[in-house]
């Protein structure tokens, strides 16, 4: 096991990558943005805030902050659209609007990808190849459902609920918007969506797409702001359905807020996924999967494979191979097409990652980081692996939401399952083995909503996603995801 593997990014390496930056000229950044209410961009009454590029701390734009009154206006617009246009519309026509939106997302894909990487800090390779294409796919998939809901197998004659209030996180700003907006519209609801405070730009660009598609005013409303704006959306008396993706802590307060009301609620919360590697796994593929599991999107993924469970007899081999592979990852400019690891989304999140990592070390785990130069501006954290982790350590229990992997070991399949399930979360898991019967036996016993066998972090609109236990309730995607937006669905 070597502590400092050679990194090709180091000047000593004979192989260097030439910079391959994506041009940001395709993005036309307005100095300030309003809210999108009833089909128009409008001023807000709250105090505006700034959104920055986390890779450089450059201010990108000034964003409106929606007050309770602004949210109320948006909900009224959504209610009006639900009653007058979107609700009574022929389902096939609703579907056609969604198809239009999907096409526009494809046509403007590069613009969305660059804007997403600027505002979020994620590598362009991921925003271009994952976020934006998947967002379009979600609209395409749900467009087809609009006129087929009677055949969704959710009971006879399901009906829309009305106005959906949706609050989404900063890790996949456009993709989470698509996960929320596409099923809501396909089922005949209208929406008021609040994007995350640090990543509002692609949602506002999406508002332009809605106008370009001639979507009737009020069907989609975007209200920007922070926690108070989100609370106003969730607690608004005329919202029929609340959908939230984010931290378990906020999910808990939302569940309390809707208690005793008739509002329907789905929650997609945190996770602490176990990625289980058996001794018969193809090690090179498993190592790729481990890297994909924890370093994809800087580890800002609720289903990230943040707990690596390795069978004891292959531990040293896996760790050595993993460290070698991590040494080849390139951290830096998110707009460079060679970049694997981009910026941490905010100073606040960086502080949390640092704090939990320091606690990991203080509690006795061994921290390893590759030789890796961090840019002097912006928010950065190097890929990090903790070995000698015990299940009681906080880095084995708490969601870090960053590029930090905790490694534990096991001897038998029973022990692997017991350790994997030893979590208050239950969102996802990974299993690596060549033995088919073992895959089926282990996946059967894992208490998690999504299990990737010999793969990790795969997503598709046809495939339901969501958690067990304190990772939330409800599913997004697939036939199952529609139920959350329909009255009378079973």
């Amino acid at each position, binding site marked *: 096991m070597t502590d400092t593997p050679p990194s090709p990014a180091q000047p000593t390496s004979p192989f260097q990558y030439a910079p391959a930056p994506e041009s940001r000229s395709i993005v036309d950044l307005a100095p300030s943005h309003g809210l999108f209410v009833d089909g128009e961009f409008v001023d807000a009454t709250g105090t505006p805030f700034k959104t920055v590029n986390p890779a450089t701390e450059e201010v990108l734009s000034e964003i409106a902050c929606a007050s309770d009154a602004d949210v109320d206006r948006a909900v009224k617009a959504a209610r009006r659209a639900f009653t007058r246009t979107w609700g009574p519309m022929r389902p096939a026509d609703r579907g056609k609007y969604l198809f239009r939106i999907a096409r526009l997302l494809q046509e403007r894909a590069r613009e969305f990808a660059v804007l997403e990487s600027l505002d979020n800090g994620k590598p362009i390779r991921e925003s271009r190849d994952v976020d934006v294409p998947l967002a379009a*796919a979600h609209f395409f998939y749900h467009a087809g459902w609009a006129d087929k809901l009677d055949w969704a*197998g959710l*009971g006879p004659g399901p009906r829309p609920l009305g106005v959906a209030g949706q609050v989404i996180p900063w890790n996949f700003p456009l993709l989470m918007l698509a996960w929320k907006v596409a099923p809501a519209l396909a089922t005949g609801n209208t929406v008021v969506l609040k994007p995350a405070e640090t990543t509002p730009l692609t949602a506002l660009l999406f508002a332009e797409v809605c106008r370009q598609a001639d979507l009737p005013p009020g069907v989609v409303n975007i209200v920007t702001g922070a926690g108070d704006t989100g609370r106003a959306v969730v607690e608004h008396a005329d919202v029929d359905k609340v959908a939230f993706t984010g931290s*378990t802590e906020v*999910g*808990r*307060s939302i*569940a*309390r807020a809707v*208690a*005793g009301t008739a509002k329907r609620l789905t*929650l997609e*919360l945190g996770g602490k996924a176990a990625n289980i590697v058996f001794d018969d796994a193809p090690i090179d593929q498993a190592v790729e999967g481990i890297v994909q599991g924890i370093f994809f999107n800087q580890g800002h993924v609720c289903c990230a494979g943040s707990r690596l469970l390795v069978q004891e007899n292959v531990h040293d081999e896996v760790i050595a191979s993993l460290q070698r592979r991590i040494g080849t990852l390139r951290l830096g400019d998110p707009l460079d097409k060679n970049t694997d690891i981009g910026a941490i989304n905010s100073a606040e999140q960086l502080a949390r990652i640092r704090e939990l990592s320091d606690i990991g070390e203080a509690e006795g785990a061994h921290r390893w980081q590759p030789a890796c130069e961090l840019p002097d501006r912006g928010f950065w954290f190097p890929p990090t692996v903790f070995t000698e982790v015990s299940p009681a350590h906080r880095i084995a229990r708490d969601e870090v939401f960053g590029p930090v992997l905790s490694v534990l070991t096991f001897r038998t399949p029973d022990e692997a399952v017991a350790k994997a399930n030893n979590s*208050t979360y239950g969102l996802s898991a990974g299993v690596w083995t060549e033995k088919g019967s073992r*895959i089926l036996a282990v*996946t059967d016993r894992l*208490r*998690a*909503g*999504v*299990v*990737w*066998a*010999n*793969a990790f972090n*795969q997503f*598709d609109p*046809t*495939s*339901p*996603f*969501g958690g*067990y*236990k*304190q*990772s*939330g*309730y409800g*599913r997004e995607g*697939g*036939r*199952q995801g529609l*139920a959350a937006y329909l009255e009378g669905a*079973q």
Partner: protein
Amino acid sequence: MSDRLAVRKTYKLYLGGAFPRSESGRTYEVTDARGAFLANAAQASRKDARDAVVAARAAFGKWSGATAYNRGQVLYRVAEVMEGRHAQFCEEVAAGEGSSSSRARAAVDAAIDRWVWYAGWTDKLGAVLGGANPVAGPYFDFSLPEPTGVVAVLAPQRSSLLGLVSVLAPVLAGGNTAVVVTSRARPLPAVTLGEVLATSDVPGGVVNLLTGDAGELGPWLAEHDDVDAVDLTGAPADRAMELERLAAGSIKRVVRPPAEEPDWSADPGLGRLTPFLETKTVWHPMGL
């Protein structure tokens, strides 16, 4: 003189497959609809509720791991054993609910038939609620319904047998285990159901029946970290919101109470099965 002095009954809880007294030693009098003494019932305490959760958790692995075919057989067996106690159930329902014997008989018939309905669902849920997902990539991807875990059920207060079976059977059919707080005023059909369950191949701990007060026990169950879902159907109307708030602490799945107790004789559909099921999705590469 042939008048025989009746043996008066003091019932116990049904917990972990056994019939213990409440650890609190408390009992309460159960009367018929006109106020005449019927029996003494155990009044479960917070500790009993916690013990019941432990028993339900311990039983979860075996019950959820049983084949769907086996679970269906066991639920059907409950119907068979109930049928043998038909007359006793009718008497208890009529006395507790103050209903005519023909209405009581109809309720007992429907309760038995409900077990049969859910017995037939166990091995069909996977096909109806799950399936293969046609993802855009070289993967085989399928979704299956799985039980949520331990479900705390506050049973209906009025319909002492049909209501009870209507909320309990779907929880079990999905593979969950249950901690049930029975109707406070009308617990006897539940007590007898416990005796039926104990002799029907239902493994001990899969169902735990607590006679007592939903208002008193509800909060402990709603906030218990090892309870995965709570059915508030029989919650006192003025406490339901508080219970839902407590349940939020551990992100429990909640079935809210209806505005008024529903007509339990109506077709149950799938509406009480799905709230206690999770969807697990499994991906595997195809080809390479």
